[in-house]
């Protein structure tokens, strides 16, 4: 981490970029947040560890409105979102200096807490660049140990890959974390009857409190004004007036990001109610792959999304 911090400092001092977009440490050891660092002094609070799950790509939209260039730290999976934003003309390449940061998987604090570990004061061993696979957790009730690999976010267990799709330089190495099939759960849900499916999603979505965290964190949800906030449409509301609306919000959101979602998993990571929102998006990804051949949104800036392009080989409706 120190190497990364030093390099950012150097780039800012050499005036390659005017600010940096990274993570700063939070109140506890496990609540790092996305942050702009406008001067080298502010870099004291910079961190990069397993708790830096936040995908910074979307912040680049704001960074592009600022003077000069911004250093942005991107984990391999974050680069897909960055590319997708580039493709949609929401950010400008020349406004960013991309440091591709190595990643050995990001951590899920709720998974740690699920082991009965409460009153956490500090967590050691979350460093991204160490090969140690042990988390040492200090709590007010005593010390605990947990394997790093056992505390990974679900998305890291079915990681898309350790390659950065776009970068100016790479710091640190990435480790393989794949231990599950990305579409396993989707296949299970597909086996359900329509009534069971409806029940499953109704149950999950009934937890929604419409805090909009999923939408606000989602790099694909980057509309200047969301249809759910715009008074131009009848869909604008803060809270749901009935159980239909909470479902409508998530279903419409899934349709809006279909073909553009990179499966970064931020929606599920930030959901305070632990709704597995990524399942909607993954179902779309699976269907797109099946109908149009493998497609990974954001793997490059040139390839057209099958949903907004046409070719003679396209699947014919009704002939699936």
């Amino acid at each position, binding site marked *: 981490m120190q190497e990364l911090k030093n390099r950012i400092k150097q780039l800012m001092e050499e005036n390659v970029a005017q600010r940096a977009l990274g993570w700063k440490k939070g109140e506890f050891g496990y609540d790092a947040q996305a942050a702009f660092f406008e001067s080298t002094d502010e870099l004291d609070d910079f961190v990069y560890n397993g708790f830096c799950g936040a995908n910074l790509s979307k912040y680049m939209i704001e960074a592009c*409105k600022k003077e000069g260039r911004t250093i942005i730290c991107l984990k391999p999976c974050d680069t897909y979102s960055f590319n997708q934003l580039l*493709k*949609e*003309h*929401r950010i400008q390449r020349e406004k960013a200096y991309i440091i591709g940061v190595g990643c050995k998987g990001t951590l899920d604090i709720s998974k740690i807490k699920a082991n009965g570990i409460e009153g956490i004061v500090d967590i050691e061993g979350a460093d991204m660049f160490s090969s140690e696979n042990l988390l040492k957790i200090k709590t007010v009730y005593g010390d605990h140990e947990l394997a790093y690999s056992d505390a990974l976010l679900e998305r890291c267990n079915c990681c898309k890959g350790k390659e950065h799709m776009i970068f100016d330089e790479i710091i640190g190495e990435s480790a393989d974390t794949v231990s599950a099939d990305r579409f396993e759960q989707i296949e299970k849900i597909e086996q359900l009857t329509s009534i069971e499916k409806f029940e499953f999603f109704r149950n999950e979505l009934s937890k929604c409190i419409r805090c909009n965290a999923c939408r606000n964190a989602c790099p694909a949800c*980057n*509309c*200047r*004004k*969301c*249809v759910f906030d*715009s008074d*131009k*449409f*009848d869909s604008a509301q803060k809270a749901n007036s009935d159980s239909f609306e909470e479902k409508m919000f998530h279903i419409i959101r899934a349709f*809006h*990001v279909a073909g553009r979602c990179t499966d970064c998993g931020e929606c599920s990571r930030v959901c305070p109610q632990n709704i597995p929102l990524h399942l909607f998006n993954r179902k779309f990804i699976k269907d797109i792959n099946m109908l149009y051949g493998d497609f990974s949104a954001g793997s490059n800036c040139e390839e*057209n*999304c099958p949903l*907004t*392009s*046409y070719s*003679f080989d396209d699947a014919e409706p009704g002939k699936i």
Partner: protein
Amino acid sequence: MQRIGVFVCHCGSNIAATVDVKRVALAMLSENGVVFADDYQYMCSESGQLKIAQAVKEHNLTGLVICSCSPRMHEATFRKAAEKAGINPYMVEIANIREQCSWIHKDIEQATQKAIILARAAVAKVNLNSPLIAGKSPVKKRALVIGGGIAGIQTALDIADAGFEVDIVEKTPSIGGKMSQLDKTFPTLDCSACILTPKMVDCAAHEKITIFTYSEVENVSGFVGNFTVDIKKKARYVDSAKCTGCGLCQEKCPSKKALSEFNCGLSNRSAIYTPFAQAVPNVPVIDPLQCIKLKTGKCGLCEKVCAANAIDYTQKDEIITREYGAIVVATGFDVINLDNYDEYAYSQSKDVITSLELERIMNAAGPTKGHLERMSDGKAPKNIVFVQCVGSRCADNKGKSYCSKICCMYTAKHAMLIRDKYPDVNVSVFYIDVRTPGKNFDEFYRRAVEEYGVNYIKGQVGKVTPEPDGSLTVHGVDLIDGRQVKISADMVVLAAAIEPNASVRQLATQLTASIDTNNFLTEAHPKLRPVESPTAGVFLSGVCQGPKDIPETVSQAGAAAAKVIGLLAKNELTTNPCTAHSDELLCNGCSACANVCPYGAISYQDKEVNDHGIRETRRIAMVNTALCQGCGACTVTCPSGAMDLNGFSNKQIIAEVDAICR
């Protein structure tokens, strides 16, 4: 607040027999905005329209809902009626209670309920309608004809004779098409070339016609009256301006192994070639895959012998851009590939041929100089079997479901010509039905049977087996006698199905013209607008629209020309005001709409906007309303709802859905 009048049409008994029209009218009176509702026997009639005008005046109406047939039938009628009565024509909505209701339901109660719901949706939409003003666009007074067969030639001649410029784009080195490959034509047996070549020459000589042979349409943009087309002129390696057409180059060319396309691969041609003697233009092309000079750099014989100095090995493909007011598709047909029909041994024996190949064999300029010979050993055949419907009228996916229409007649022609010239040859024809519904067609067929003794067998052929002695055993069934038949033949002729030229799929995409499941171009209306494509400004001529013979093709070519002339005679066209526009405060500039726009109507501009006090430069989608056809693809793709369509706004459509679900 709108003041809406609802008019429910009986359409004689078409609607009134299944829908309680009085109840529909009554139900509408309680809808928001409706101040008047009535029913009438024929709303589209003079008196029906008068009723509308009176109601507008008496009740001071601002919007109209007509519950009647499909808007494709009478939307224009009612819009005109509204305009006459002093209402903006776009304040009219049609609730289709005929095609989408009365015609498809039997239960009066249910049909009436549905009619009420459909009318309610239309009322909900009119409540949100706003007046729209149609614009004007100029007409480029030149037509493009794609395809230089008899269909394209006739269309071009007719348009040019009316005084308009026409360009013909033909893929092959000469115009003439399939008709130039035919020997004789039914039912008069006149020589195909004798009646076609004068027309080809007329085309070349016509001051209003420009022919681009060996050329293809590369790109089409624009809209009715204002198309811009890129045409790729493939490198000919021969300077058309210098070439005298003496033919010496073809004679001297040492590369003579290429299969002649014109003779269906039954003879060879040189690397530098004109497809046939009467080719227009009479300028050869060099086949770059066959030319020794172009492949290896050596040879160059044609250049040496050319007295006119016309050979130019450095020629490159050239793209030219031309503007047109109308486009006629006349891309014609091909014979289907017979790979799926190996039971007829087409790939196994040279003596199993298609009818088009027989056409070349019978022709004096063909591979056998017009002598009827077997392609395997050059011997004269004694027994010939014709097999009808090879790949036509297929119930399975193996072939085409449609009837190719021309095969019954050309087979009768072939059988008759053979029996006439070679009376000792036995001719049998296996058929499913003999279809002869044309002028003098049945008389022609009966002559083949009665005067020429052609043996017609009702039944299909199951298998053709090549025998070691070179003969072919045809295993078939005679349905009338109810028995299996086995005929030993020297030659088998397959009436292979015809299908639209393969290029039509891509062309249809370029033109945004629709095609059916068999790749035939679709008409704007199968009965009432048979030579127009649903895409404005695109017209259809010949087999690209459906199987047809020469007389039919020529009539259709003339009809397409008449439509084109009608369009080009106008100085300006009324444009559709139902176009898309983007809300600059909502637009993300993400390009999703431009990606899905089939008309290339959307571009982007960096524009300074004032978003509630925040001034910034944003990438904003701009719609070229001249290009926009109002399809609405952009509005459903736009995630932020910035794109909206005049006359079909997101709000209007949601209001309709809400009214239906209420």
